[in-house]
């Protein structure tokens, strides 16, 4: 177990290194820089040139990379040119929002997926199962950015049940109960939009696992011993079927990141995904590289987490 984990973590280091080089070089290859948006006759081009020099944007890329990675190792991602503040501080503001959004999305995902998956697996090949499978395929096929827009339009604007942008109502004092409620209220619609159509994988895993498990011998034994149907499902089948779900928990993180980029932009929710898109279009290099690297790290860590959980659950896949 420990050996496996350590080896798995060792593999991550070259992965992250290659990732960081790729991110950095690609970011620098984008045409323009953070100052090309400042084409304004009232600003002196000489001053802009001076700033470019000072920022070191004319240095060869490997020098810039060395400077950057040197900071990154000390958890210093440099200065955001656009926000004029340290990237670490900037991400600190945003990551909190993204964290809560992801957490609530995960909770919704499991709240939806587990009952549906169980029903679907228990009553497989019935109308109920078909409907649930149909729903999960529909979720699989629907692009998240279309679905989120529809949700925003229907529940945000037409029905007016939820706020349409932001993470909190302006004017509330942080720390109060109202502030907390407002935060949650702003989270529900984006989280639900994402959860409703990303549940498909969890539903399907659970369904297949239950169908698989219920034909196993030990279930037959449990039935033979006279266990009630609900006991068979809740104690024996459900528990055993949850294992793969737990194992794929790490990969959920990757899906969440991809989804959050769309969701946060559509709902005007100031998290990491929105920060990434804005920084790309405004060429705020240090933020682009930092957010991408962090997303990449989250994905790699997610995969690691999955592998570790999986190895605990299933001793067969442990690397010798």
């Amino acid at each position, binding site marked *: 177990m420990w050996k496996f984990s350590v080896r798995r973590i060792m593999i991550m280091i070259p992965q992250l290194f290659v990732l960081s080089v790729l991110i950095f070089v690609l970011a620098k290859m984008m045409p323009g820089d953070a100052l090309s948006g400042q084409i*304004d006759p009232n600003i002196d081009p000489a001053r802009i040139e001076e700033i470019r020099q000072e920022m070191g944007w004319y240095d060869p890329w490997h020098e810039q990379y060395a400077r950057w990675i040197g900071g990154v190792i000390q958890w210093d991602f440099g200065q955001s040119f*656009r926000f004029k503040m340290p990237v670490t501080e900037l991400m600190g503001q945003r990551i909190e929002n993204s964290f809560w959004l992801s957490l609530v999305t995960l909770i919704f995902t499991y709240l939806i997926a587990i009952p549906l998956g169980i029903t679907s697996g228990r009553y497989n090949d019935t109308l109920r199962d078909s409907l649930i499978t149909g729903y999960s395929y529909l979720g699989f096929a629907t692009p998240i950015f279309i679905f989120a827009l529809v949700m925003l339009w229907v529940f945000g604007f037409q029905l007016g049940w939820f706020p349409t942008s932001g993470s909190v109502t302006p004017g509330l004092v942080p720390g109060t109960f109202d502030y907390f409620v407002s935060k949650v209220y702003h989270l529900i619609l984006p989280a639900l939009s994402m959860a409703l159509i990303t549940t498909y994988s969890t539903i399907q895993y659970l369904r297949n696992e239950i169908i698989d498990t219920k034909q196993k011998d030990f279930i037959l034994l449990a039935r033979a011993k006279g266990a009630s149907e609900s006991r068979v499902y809740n104690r024996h089948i459900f528990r055993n079927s949850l294992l793969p779900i737990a194992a794929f928990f790490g990969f959920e993180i990757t899906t969440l990141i991809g989804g959050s980029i769309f969701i946060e932009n559509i709902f005007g929710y100031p998290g990491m995904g929105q920060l990434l898109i804005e920084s790309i279009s405004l060429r705020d290099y240090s933020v682009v590289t930092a957010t991408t690297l962090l997303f990449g790290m989250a994905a790699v860590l997610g995969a690691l987490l999955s592998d570790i959980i999986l190895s605990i659950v299933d001793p067969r896949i442990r690397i010798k």
Partner: protein
Amino acid sequence: MSKNVTKLLFALMLAMVLVLAACGDKDTADNGNNNNNTEDPANNENNEDNGEEDPADDEDSNLFSIDDFSQSKNNEGEPIEGGTLNFGLVSDTVFEGTLNWNFYSGAPDAEVIGWFDESMLYMDDTFTYTNEGPAEFTTEPYETDEYPNGVTFTFTIKDGVKWHDGEPVKAEDWAFSYEVIGHPDYPGVRYGPDFSGIIGMEEYNAGEADSISGIEIVDDKTLKITYKESQPSLLTGGVWTYAMPKHLFKDIPVAEMQEHDLVRKNPVGMGPFKVKQITPGESVVYEKFADYWRGEPNLDEVVLKVIAPEVVVQALQTGEVDMVDSFPTDQFVDNADMSNVEWLGQTDLAYTYIGFKLGHWDKEEKKVVMDPDKKMADVNLRRAMWYAVDNNAVGEQFYNGLRWNATTLIIPPFGDYHNSEIETPTYNPDEAKKILDEAGYLDVDGDGIREDKEGNELTINFATMSGGDVAEPLAQYYIQSWKAVGLNVELIDGRLLEFNAFYDRVGQAGDDDPNIDIYQGAWGTGSDVNPYGLYGPDQLFNFPRYESEKNSELLEAGNSLDAFDTDYRIDIYRQWQELMVEDIPVFPTLYRAVLIPVNNRVVNYTIERGANMGLHELGVTQEEPFTHEG
């Protein structure tokens, strides 16, 4: 059995997909129909409600004109005491939160600052400084051997002008702004000729002097600034008119100021509202500043929040915001009937243009170099291309009349400076063909496309930016118009360029792409009429890389000592506009409108330039905003 179920499921899935697809289609189709059908009755309603101020044109309900818009809100009813106004900052990005005039760089931040801090000098409708603001000024000549044409400004800050913490605004606060921007460690973009023109500033900026010799604090309320050269542009935006509270900032190193809480979280200004709370990037809550020097504001509170352009219409209809800083004009036509707002409009300080690449940028010498071998070097070719395009049609077809044919490079909001008498080329394809024939651009091989004067194939590469629904069809329209007179124009790389790539290749850093022959760009002009920064021979932003003796001479005369005489300056700039129509380094295509929707409950609001009405007068007639019915 199970096979049947699968089949059934498959069929069900297919059906669902089709239903979904149909839904999508129906939605768009419905929207389209709605627009066409409801436009007329809606406009009639407007006619009844607003009388003369109806922005709709009678002949064609989808065509509008800037002349039909009022610049000031029609006050309906008396303002209540207090109240909260919700202001929408329309932006697809968050505001950065650099909330200080000396450090901000994004337009959204400027909008946020404008509510709580203000300029020491106000401007009139010709963008000239007045004595109406928090400070007054006088000028006197400054003549020494070193600087024979200098000028000294004496600023006097009025009594009662206070910072939000109650401290009076002093001369040292204003001087402090200069000391910060001129400081060698200053990280922002503001430092430029406006600052280095002050006596002693360059030495201070280089770190050779501890103070700026041209800036003198006479007493608490009086400040003197001496410039090396007396130029009329100083009076139209050349002075840095923003003070910063020295008593709060004095101990913070200049390089760290922009990260400090005084810029980020608790900014202190002198405007009618003070910042109560900031949610970074999202919203700002302001409360009134009772000691505002022009009087206690009407409103108790202003809530500013960022609204994405995609949802601004819904936010206005539901009253979520009372007004916005700028409304996406392309959405206006579909929403002209919004019943709970009044639309204000004026001509924007900007123009769109087609530029011709006539040379390149010499990085060493820092000046433009014309190249007579360039494809576009013949002025007749450029003139013919101007004649070939119908910009009024473009304005009507693509922008519903909210953009219209531009004539000269000094835009109409500059009043008398704008030369409205010049006959500029307007759409006339026959004239274009005639010019080309006479200039020797003939179709030698008979394929309908003209060759150049030597009979070689002529392909003109056109660079234009992506962005918005109109960009692509507009580019295609221009290309077709030129083809109609026999010129083969192609999009460079066969596609539209992304903003950053576009300006990189047009030459924002001096590395012009030699393959670009013509390009479509746009300029915001700012408040200074002086076009030197865009067309001067040593200016990087002179993208056509054009220069001529006459051009340099006129541009210099326009900002000389003599030009303090307004009539003289007007005459010079009128001549310059004529020269631009003769030489055509670029030709302007479109002027544009800005539209601001304002909820009916808002009173005392104007977007008129130079208006004396302040934000402290702003009020609302009822607690709740009106909502759209219909």
